[in-house]
């Protein structure tokens, strides 16, 4: 290897003065391009506790429905409301929401869509079963009642 010694006197230091700028550029690039899809939950969410919990197998197949008393009671009253994405919807609009969510998936996966129901403990069953009827209507039959692991056993 060393037989062919190069006798070049080229400068071997890489100038690092521009490194911070490069990093900042990367940072800004990611900051601009990343969409932080954080739904603002506008309903109270105290999830029930249960022991027989299963994990979601694939997160991409899951859509969320939030049900609970609105946090801003002066604006929305204190009747439990249904929230999908960032808006309150009526029970009748749940089908439309499910179809929107199904459109996001590829055709083979559409039947496997799982609706994660995040329901506050104080909600009565009436609204929950109304939503379930709509889900049946929309043919989204996999439901996950989101709950927290019960600690005392």
């Amino acid at each position, binding site marked *: 290897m060393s037989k062919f010694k190069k006798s070049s006197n080229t400068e071997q230091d890489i100038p690092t003065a521009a490194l911070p700028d490069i990093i900042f550029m990367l940072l800004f690039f990611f900051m601009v391009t990343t969409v932080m899809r954080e739904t603002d939950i506008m309903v109270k969410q105290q999830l029930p506790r*249960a022991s*027989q*919990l299963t994990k979601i197998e694939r997160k991409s197949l899951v859509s969320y429905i939030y049900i609970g008393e609105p946090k801003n009671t002066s604006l929305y009253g204190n009747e439990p409301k249904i929230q999908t994405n960032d808006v309150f919807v009526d029970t009748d609009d749940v089908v439309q929401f499910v179809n929107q969510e199904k459109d996001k998936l590829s055709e083979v996966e559409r039947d496997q869509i799982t609706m994660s129901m995040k329901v506050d403990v104080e909600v009565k069953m*009436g609204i929950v*079963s109304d939503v379930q*009827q709509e889900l049946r*209507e929309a043919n989204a039959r996999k439901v996950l009642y989101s709950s927290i692991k019960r600690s005392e056993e």
Partner: protein
Amino acid sequence: MPRGKKRPLPEVSSGSMADIAFLLLIFFLVTTTIANDKGIAMLLPPKPDPNEPPPEVNKNDKNIFKILANSSDQLLVEDEPYKKSMDELKKEVKEFVLNFGDPTEEGIQVYNSLPSSMKASVNRFGKRPDSSDDPTECVVSFKAARGTSYELYIDVLDAINAAYNEIYAERVGITVEEWLALDKDDDIQKDMYNRARSNIPRAISIAEPD
């Protein structure tokens, strides 16, 4: 190897490496959402076909374990007011499912597939003729009123699921925790899952409230 002669190694200044690492770290910290979504999974029944009348229920009444909840969160289990804990309810469901009052051929097969510890407990108190015929036949029916709290609904559903999960787990000789953590993408675990569930369907019927 180069002979003896020392050549200065090209050096990249690593002073800002820490900054880079921190930036990356912060970036991932911010964007990662921890998958903490767990819950009780359930499959809703298909939507009713308007052209077909609702299916006739031709199950023998003793094969249905009825749980009713009213608007003031009181339970009616098998037509009697229920005051006991959810743990007791779980045990009752379990005993109901694992009862061989009048087993069919499939029921006898199920019995033969049970491990000996379960056979023993079935032999001790699992032959009541007034309870369910066998695990293949029985159904747990749960009906909540519109005014029932969601908390109670989840509690009862959890108890029923716990009863079934305990049966499945015991059938293949693992703990309930291991049963719940079974990975269905893995062939061996999937096989275990199917073996446990074969012929003991998780028949939970959630009736619509009036």
